[in-house]
């Protein structure tokens, strides 16, 4: 029997957006998937060592994850995303991440695909291309792609439904507005989620709202915004605005898009308590907890007054 191809997926950045799609696609094609471990102190240290000081924390963590996969698999999956259409660009970090990794780790064997809708590089062809590298049967690739796509949709709907369930109860509700690669990351965001779980406050995630709805709502807050990922988050703010008691931004230092977008929203949304939490490599847990506690106190006293 032929040996199974091992595909390494770094548990950072777009993993949190595409993990269901990638996992199902490659497993149906008969590959083994090797995930990098959850982010820990070592990964952050290695990532810091291999990247420029000024790059954002999320990208440093990404480098650490890639490093941990080298020599453990046949290919490391690194997508390159430029845009999803004329008005839906993404942060330039995703434009260059492939070349940055390639030049920092020349020995790594990389499986890459390109999403650039303005130049007709769309997701379907991208997956055909990478599918062809691991399996020569085109029908199998097609079927795997569509099946994986359906699984992804089902998963997103289930997330959406769980959010709806939360909306129906009477607990305190807080909307966390953060890129999925920040908030679901063990090093950056987990403390925050755990804190609210411990305090028995319900948490809504801005990125779990259905993307099309989110983008249509984003226009209420900003007309000129052209980053797709930021648009989805902002849309969720105007969608959930009435239903939540507080909004928290979680940002990794120094995130380019967030530096402008968060500031704008802080200035535009008036009658809900908002706080902006910026996390870098040296954020202390105690300091973070104090800030979250005081924020929660404000929300609670506000609810009692009403």
């Amino acid at each position: 029997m032929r040996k199974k191809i091992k595909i390494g997926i770094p548990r950072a950045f777009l993993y949190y957006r595409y993990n269901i799609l990638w996992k199902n696609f490659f497993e149906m094609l008969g590959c083994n998937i090797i995930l990098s471990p959850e982010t820990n102190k070592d990964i952050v240290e290695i990532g810091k060592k291999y990247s420029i000081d000024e790059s954002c924390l999320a990208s440093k963590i990404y480098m650490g994850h890639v490093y941990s996969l080298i020599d453990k698999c046949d290919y490391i999956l690194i997508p390159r995303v430029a845009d999803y259409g004329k008005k839906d660009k993404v942060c330039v970090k995703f434009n260059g991440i492939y070349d940055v990794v390639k030049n920092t780790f020349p020995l790594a064997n990389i499986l890459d695909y390109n999403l650039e809708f303005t130049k007709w590089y769309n997701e379907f062809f991208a997956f055909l291309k990478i599918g062809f590298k691991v399996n020569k049967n085109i029908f199998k690739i097609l079927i795997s792609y569509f099946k994986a796509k359906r699984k992804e949709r089902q998963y997103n709907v289930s997330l959406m439904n769980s959010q709806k369930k939360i909306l129906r109860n009477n607990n305190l509700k807080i909307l966390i507005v953060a890129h999925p690669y920040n908030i679901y990351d063990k090093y950056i965001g987990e403390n925050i989620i755990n804190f609210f779980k411990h305090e028995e406050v319900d948490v809504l995630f801005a990125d779990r709202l259905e993307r099309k709805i989110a983008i249509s709502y984003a226009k209420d807050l900003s007309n000129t915004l052209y980053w797709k990922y930021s648009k989805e988050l902002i849309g969720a703010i105007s969608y959930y605005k009435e239903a939540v008691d507080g909004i928290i931004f979680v940002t990794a230092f120094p995130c380019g898009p967030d530096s402008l977008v968060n500031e704008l929203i802080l200035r535009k949304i008036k009658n809900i308590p908002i706080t902006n939490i910026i996390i870098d490599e040296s954020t202390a847990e105690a300091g973070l907890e104090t800030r979250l506690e005081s924020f929660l106190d404000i929300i609670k006293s506000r609810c009692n007054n009403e």
Partner: protein
Amino acid sequence: MNKKITFPHMGDYYIPISYLIKKITKCEVIIPPFITRKTIEIGSKYSPDFVCVPFKYNLGNFIESLNMGANVILQAGGGCRYGYYAELQEEILRNLGYDFEFVNFIKDNHVSIINIYKYAKKINKKLNIFKYFYYLINTITMIIIMDSLGKNIRENMGFEVEKGSFKKIQNEFFEEIKGKIGFIKLIKIYFKYKKKYNNCKINKPKNHLKVAIVGELYSIMEPFCSYNIETKLANMGIEVKRFTTLTYLLIVKKFKLPHLLKKGKKYLKYHLGADATESVVLSYQLAQEGYDGIIHIKSFGCTPEINAMPILAKVSEDYGMPIIYFSFDAQDNEVGVDTRLEAFYDMILDKKNK
């Protein structure tokens, strides 16, 4: 209400921009005061924490010219975060209590020529499309002339016999294009000053040092932001090469960008976004051509250029090419820049003599 229009500074390009606005709208144009320490202090006071420096400079410009009585602000730009400046700046200025009209020419992350025409037509009813294009062509010609003369200055200023002769001619040239001009006069001015520059006495040794500047556009083109790094290099007797000019960004880039990726195949597979592709590929080419060093300039937190930096480091390693990285923020001090520049100069001089 009389409209008094203002716009942000970038190097010497306030001359063509104010010319275009004055001609097509027939309104009063308020050129913001030249950038000083005060501008950046005001700007960074009201800016978000880790936004890049151009935002702070622009905001400082706006506040200073609003205080001078301006009531219409023009903003344009695109490529990276630049395209999103306008909306936040408007919000910040409104919260400060200023009353003004904010006009944003950015559409889908690019400056739209048609939007400019539509806006000008609204103010100035007499404008028609032919006049508009005539003035637009004049402006672009002016920019091209400025850049091509500027190239000459950068190449030769370090070797002038009489100190300050190049600067003097440049000032004369600026005075002349600020006056009444038409297309034909512009061309005449170009040849007149080209001759003047060529007649300027220089003492250029055969084996002089050559250095190229690459990086983020605003920090390169606004001399205040980079502490006049070009003049400093010239005083050290170095020939400076720089690709990023307004001509390049507006016209040449469109045609050149697809070819660049092919040339830089060794290091790049995809575009890095904004001007980072140029930074990498041009450095790579210059390394092959035998330049003595490269100066990489950016503002703090500029994501595209951060993408380029690890790749530049690799180019430097492969070709033994010295590269120095400058990252400018609102609170740098000039002495630090000088010291690093001097160390860099000693290094490339040493390398050359070997």
